[in-house]
């Protein structure tokens, strides 16, 4: 674990591969006053703080203590994440009729029905959120679904689209450009700025996709 200053009011905690989400959860359980943002990524966590409230050296000491408490190496999802784990499971209904479903069926050799079974058959976990408000990067699903992103990005992906790309799956919170392979679409609003909470998917949450009928 390395502590890398990011300016004079933030620190990037550089971790082992994939250890970002676990460190985020461990720090969230013991967040010092003066910390204003804790933002996980796959293998790092950014901590933004007010040096008028929390001295940089004290923050460094607290972060090293969290690192030492995390005894286990990171484990893939399927529920056994060390540390405090939110117990909420978010179910996402999906109409599996995405523009890339058949192509993914060919790329994986599973066929469209096999892709749906694999996507819904294993729980996913929100590793971190980025790219857009509420866009959760999901990991830990069926490893047979690891396909490359599309060669050519789409300029407009409909809101609610469910996609996969590399080792991730995700739901596009609003219409945006996107390069992932689209499997289907959910009627759920994973992001609603006027709702409390605004984001359906929070780092650490478990997600299950459920196939439903529809257009």
């Amino acid at each position, binding site marked *: 674990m390395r502590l890398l200053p990011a300016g004079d009011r933030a620190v990037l905690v550089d971790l082992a591969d994939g250890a970002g989400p676990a460190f985020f959860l461990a720090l969230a359980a013991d967040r010092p006053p003066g910390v204003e943002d804790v933002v996980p990524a796959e293998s790092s966590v950014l901590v*933004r703080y007010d040096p008028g409230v929390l001295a940089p050296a004290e923050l460094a000491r607290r972060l090293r203590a969290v690192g030492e408490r995390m005894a286990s190496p990171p484990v893939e999802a399927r529920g056994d994440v060390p540390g405090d784990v939110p117990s909420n499971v978010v179910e996402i209904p999906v109409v599996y009729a995405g523009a890339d479903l058949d192509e993914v069926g060919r790329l994986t050799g599973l066929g469209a029905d096999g892709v749906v079974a694999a996507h819904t058959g294993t729980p996913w976990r929100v590793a971190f959120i980025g790219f*857009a408000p509420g866009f959760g990067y999901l990991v830990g699903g069926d490893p047979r679904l690891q396909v490359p992103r599309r060669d050519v990005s789409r300029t407009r992906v409909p809101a609610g689209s469910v996609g996969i790309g590399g080792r991730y799956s995700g739901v596009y919170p609003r219409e945006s450009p996107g390069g992932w392979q689209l499997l289907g679409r959910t009627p759920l609003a994973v992001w609603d700025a006027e709702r409390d909470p605004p984001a359906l998917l929070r780092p650490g949450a478990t997600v299950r996709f459920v196939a439903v009928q529809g257009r």
Partner: protein
Amino acid sequence: MTAGAAGPMPPPGGGAALEVLEPGPLTTVQDLGRPGLAELGVPRSGAADRGALRLANRLVGNPDGAAALEVTLGGLLVRATTAVTVAVTGADCPLLRDGRPVPRNAVVELAAGSTLGLGLATAGLRGYLAVRGGLAVPPVLGSCSTDTLAGLGPPPVRPGDRLPVGRAPQGWPVVDHAPVPDPEPGPVALRVVPGPRHDRVPGAAELLAASWRVGSDADRVGLRLERVHGQAPGTPPSGSSGWSSGTVGSWPSEALVPGSLQVPPAGHPVLFLAGAPTTGGYPVVAVLVDADLDRAGQLRPGQPVTFRPVPPPF
């Protein structure tokens, strides 16, 4: 309680509003943003020059973070529907009340029906127009700031918009003019803390020692830097004013803060400003000290920029 889709709520200031006659190239509502939500992918946003926003609000007796207008380059023309008190700070631009000059960084009274116009800025890029009582637009996630990247807050102002003015705070402003330095028109040296990924980008030290200028497509999210080549003997000619860092392979997304200097494998380094996203896909070689973020928010296309490394806080 929210306004919903039916339309704006009646303004609490009893009908006081600023009517937009001309918006200028880009005018948005800004306050001090929505900090603390980056883990949900929500950028902090807020005024690109927070010091200028705070000053404008203090001059009219508002709380520091009251919603105001961020006027990019100038060109804004508004009309007061009732008598209001305003102040304009930030970029050095001509300020006209009913066509007659009035001072910036000062308290200005507008009678009902009076217009206030900002000319084109000659130094700095962003002016701030605060009105006593603040702009009473519905907040989103605790802030009235426009965030075009994340799609939060009100859209940029358009002709015909009526921006409601909130109820005036108790107590009058205690100062009517604040002598403040104008934004710098010439070369600017920005203080940076090297890192967090300067050890992963070949040539990072040389990058920080180089001379740059702001590219033409600067916006609230960030600005691209173009290399200014020196005349030192032996300097190889280059057809590109960008930077090739030689990093290979893909770089995993990681969180970043406004003020980050990000280096893609080829092309131009990007200096992120107040409207920065919460994560980025290229390494960050340095981050502005927080005190210099406001100065960066006033940089104009073509302006010369250098970086001055300072020690990290630990």
